[in-house]
Structure formats: structure tokens, C-alpha cells
């Protein structure tokens, strides 16, 4: 009576087959990550030093450090965040808390999704047209950061929208019933509970922004500029472009140098991601309902 039928056995074999298949596919996913990071560490780690991080490149980039590029990337990302975070969070709050559900709102949502799908080189050309030429910012940190900001705006909006929608409607209704306006409700109850998700989204966005090359190469990042920017109207070097230039445009760069740059860049991104995860864990512990 409890003998497995032929059918049962076949289901069981299939189960084993598919489980193995999917596990292998997951492994395939991990391989590139391991290879990339492994290669970078092996080949790049020897050049990483205090001097490498904090001195200027010299001898046509074949020697010296990456300090201006490192600082340049920080500038670009910081200015981009200053623009995209207030704009993106405000837009998401409007869409989630105020906007009526009509064709216009749906159109806006569609526009945001499409903005996320625009290739970065197209953003770059838009940045040249709009910020460099039309607004006469010239090739500068400002123009490059604004281009980056527009490119990452959908990420901020979507992350914020999702964390706002994760706050239960019952909390809002409880506040409204107490005579709170929509804005009071958002300020006192909705935003404080959405802030962990929003911050996580922003940090992930930082890591994405810091690696972008195309949007900044025409709008504000310089080929070789061995001094630090003084204002947002200066050009600057950036890690991502520096890496591109070193590997493709300059002859005679010792092999380990680009690996070192790539390692610093990826280290920056991973550190940001780690920070975001730690932050999320910290806030999750305090937030409970």
C-alpha cells in the first residue's frame, strides 16, 4: 500500500534533476563575481598603498597615484545625490501619498519607468545638450553630476515609492481620523517608517553612480587633470574614466596599475553596499510592527 508507484518515482527523479540543474545555474552566476574580484585582488592589491591613494598620477599616468580621480568621483557622486535625492523623494511622496489615480499619474509612472530604460550614452548626449551647452555650465562637475542625477532619479523614485507603500495604510488612516492632514501624517508617521528603505535605495544608487563612465566623459570628467577641483564649475578626473583612459588610451601603462584602480573602484562600491546592508539591519531592529 505504501509502495512508491512508477509515477511517484519519476516525479522524484525529476525533482532531483531540476534541483541540480538550478543549483548549477546559480553557481554559474557566482563564477564571474569570484573571478573578477579574485583577479582584481591578486593583480591589483600589490599597488594599493597610502601613496597610491593619496598622490597625483605622474609621467603620463604611467606612475604615481589616483588621488584626483578618487576625489573627483566623490565630488561627482555627492553633487549628483544633492540633486537627485530631494527631487526623487519629493516626487515619490507626491506619487504615493497625494496623486489621484488617473491617466496623468499613470503617464508619470510610465515616464519614470522609461527614464530608467534610457541607455547611459543617451543620457550623456542629453547632458551635453542640456547642461553643457544650453545652460552654459560648460564641461564641469555640475553638468556631469546633473546628468548622473537624472540618470539615477528613477532608482531613487522607485526605491522611495516601494518603501512608502510598505507602510501600512492603517497607520495613515489612524492619523487622518485624528485630524492630521496628509502632510502631517507623512511627516510624523509615514516618512520615519520608510526612511530605512529610502536610505538603502540611495546608498545602492551611490554605488551605481560611482561606476558610471559614459554620462560623465562628455560632460565634466577630464582625461588628465592632476589637481583637485575647487568648485562645481571645474572639470575633474574620475575613477571610472581614469580606468578607461589608462587601459585604452595611454601607451606604456604598467599592467598592475589599472588593476589597482579597478580594485579601488570596486572596493568603494562594495563598501557602500556593505554600509547599506548594515544600515538596513540596524534600522530593521528598531522598526517593528
Amino acid at each position, binding site marked *: 500500500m505504501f509502495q512508491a508507484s512508477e509515477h511517484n518515482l519519476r516525479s522524484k527523479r525529476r525533482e532531483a534533476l531540476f534541483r541540480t540543474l538550478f543549483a548549477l545555474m546559480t553557481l554559474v552566476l557566482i563564477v564571474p563575481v569570484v573571478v573578477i574580484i579574485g583577479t582584481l585582488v591578486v593583480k591589483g592589491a600589490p599597488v594599493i598603498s597610502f601613496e597610491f591613494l593619496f598622490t597625483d598620477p605622474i609621467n603620463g599616468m604611467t606612475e604615481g597615484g589616483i588621488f584626483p580621480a578618487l576625489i573627483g568621483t566623490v565630488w561627482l557622486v555627492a553633487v549628483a545625490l544633492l540633486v537627485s535625492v530631494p527631487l526623487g523623494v519629493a516626487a515619490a511622496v507626491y506619487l504615493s501619498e497625494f496623486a489621484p489615480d488617473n491617466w496623468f499619474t499613470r503617464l508619470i509612472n510610465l515616464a519614470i519607468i522609461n527614464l530608467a530604460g534610457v541607455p547611459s550614452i543617451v543620457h550623456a548626449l542629453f547632458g551635453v545638450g542640456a547642461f553643457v551647452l544650453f545652460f552654459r555650465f560648460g564641461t564641469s562637475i555640475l553638468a556631469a553630476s546633473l546628468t548622473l542625477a537624472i540618470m539615477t532619479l528613477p532608482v531613487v523614485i522607485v526605491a522611495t515609492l516601494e518603501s512608502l507603500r510598505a507602510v501600512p495604510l492603517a497607520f495613515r488612516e489612524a492619523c487622518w481620523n*485624528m485630524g492630521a492632514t496628509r502632510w502631517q501624517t507623512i511627516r510624523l508617521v509615514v516618512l520615519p517608517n520608510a526612511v530605512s528603505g529610502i536610505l538603502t535605495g540611495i546608498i545602492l544608487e551611490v554605488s551605481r553612480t560611482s561606476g558610471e563612465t559614459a554620462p560623465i566623459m562628455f560632460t565634466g570628467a577630464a582625461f588628465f587633470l592632476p589637481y583637485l577641483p575647487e568648485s562645481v564649475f571645474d572639470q575633474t578626473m574620475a575613477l571610472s574614466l581614469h580606468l578607461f583612459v589608462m587601459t585604452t588610451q595611454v601607451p606604456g601603462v604598467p599592467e598592475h596599475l589599472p588593476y589597482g584602480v579597478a580594485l579601488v573602484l570596486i572596493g568603494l562600491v562594495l563598501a557602500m553596499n556593505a554600509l547599506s546592508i548594515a544600515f538596513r539591519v540596524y534600522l530593521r531592529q528598531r522598526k517593528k510592527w
Partner: protein
Amino acid sequence: MAPPPSRTGKNLAEPPAKVHVRNLSIRYGSHTALSDVTLSVAEREILGIFGPANGGKTSFLKALNRMDMFTPGMRVRGEIFINGRDIRRWRNVYALRRRIGVVFPLPVGLPLSVYDNVALAPRLAGIQKKQDLDVIVESCLTRAALWDEVKDRLDTLGSLLSGGQQQRLTIARALSQNPELLVLDEFSIAVDPVTTMRIEDILKELRREITIILVTNLTAQARRLADRCAFFLSGRCIEIGETESIFSGATKDERTRDYLTGRFG
């Protein structure tokens, strides 16, 4: 704009209606939740509203404090008077809502500290002084029979309290608005029987000060608490009358008796 005399008014000495509802209909798109309801609630009475699900009970409560403004697709027709004043004439809908305390079916402890949960409404009303807030918080928590359990941990999150405590916290929050009207929507469905009885005791105390509308699934609860009862069925108010007469079988409508005797619903 004086409201017409209460339909159930027996003599002129009866206090004026706290709430008077005339020809109230509520629709969500093409779905009718409530049609043509007319009833009044007297000052300092408990009106119990019972009936099966989808009877329009919750929609009725939502219309009272104009929550239709914040509910997409909800359309309200007819008139609602509170203290003889048409609620659509309140220019400040937020002030209207502060006068009506609401308690939900599921406890909603806001993810703020217990203290801030109760101090929220007074703060919204402009009370800032710490001493004043302290007094309000203590008195509201005491009236909601929660003070003794939370007085040593007023800074824990309201959402971390147990279900029964959160429901009493919700009541304390409603009381912190110093409401003239308290509406409760099936407050006991997520609460254990002991807490339910404690809350019922609170309501019996509150009846001396404020008017209460109690929507409930438990006909026995309506019988225990309400002065008068209304039976809602499929968006209509089938019957409204003295609790005693309704439960003694002297119903005007057969459907009420059938519902109470368990023949349906």
C-alpha cells in the same frame, strides 16, 4: 439649519440629537454600500449597529468624519448633522475629525512611543507644553485602563504592545482628542475576551460623558452595551429601536428577528 426632530423622539423633553443622518447613501463607483439611511443618535447614548458583513456599517462610520475625502471612489449623498450642523459646512474638516474619536477593528499601535501615540492628537491640536501633555497622556491611558500596564515603559513602541494593549492604546488615542463622539468599528474581533470585557467596562464609564456609536458583529455585545440598536442589512437600515424591545422579540421587521435568532447571517 436645525435638524428635524428625532424620528424616535417620544416627547419634547428628550435631548436634541447629537448625530442626525438623513437619506444617506454611499457608493463606491457603481457599487452601492449604503442606501437611504435615516437615523439619529441622542446625546450620551450608545447606539449599537449590528448586521452581517457588507451591510454598510463601516462605510457609515467613514462618512461621519468625512473620510470619503481621502477614500478614492467613495461618494456620499444625503445629509449628516452633528450638533445640528451639516458636516459639509465645516470648513476645517480636520477640526471635525478631532471631535470624533475612531477605533478600528484591528488594533493600530502607531510605531511611535506609547507616550507619543497618545500625545499625537493633542500636539496636532497645538498643545506643546510638556506638563499639559503629561496630564493628558496619563488621564487618557487611565481611562482606557492601560496606565498601570505601561506607566513604566512609556517610551516603548506602541506597535510592540500586545494586541489587547494596542486596542486600549487606540482607545486612549481616541480619547486624547477629547471627542464628543466616539465611534468603534468591531473593536473586539482581534482582542481576547478578557480585554473585550475591560473595554466594555470602559465604554460604560464613557457613556456618561460622550456619545458612542458601536458597530459590532456580536449581537450579545450590542445587547450588553447599547441603549438603542440599529440593524443594517445590505446597505439599508432595516430597523432602529430600543435595545430591550429589539432583543425581547418585539421587532418591527421580521428580518431583524430572523437575524437575531440565528436564522441567517
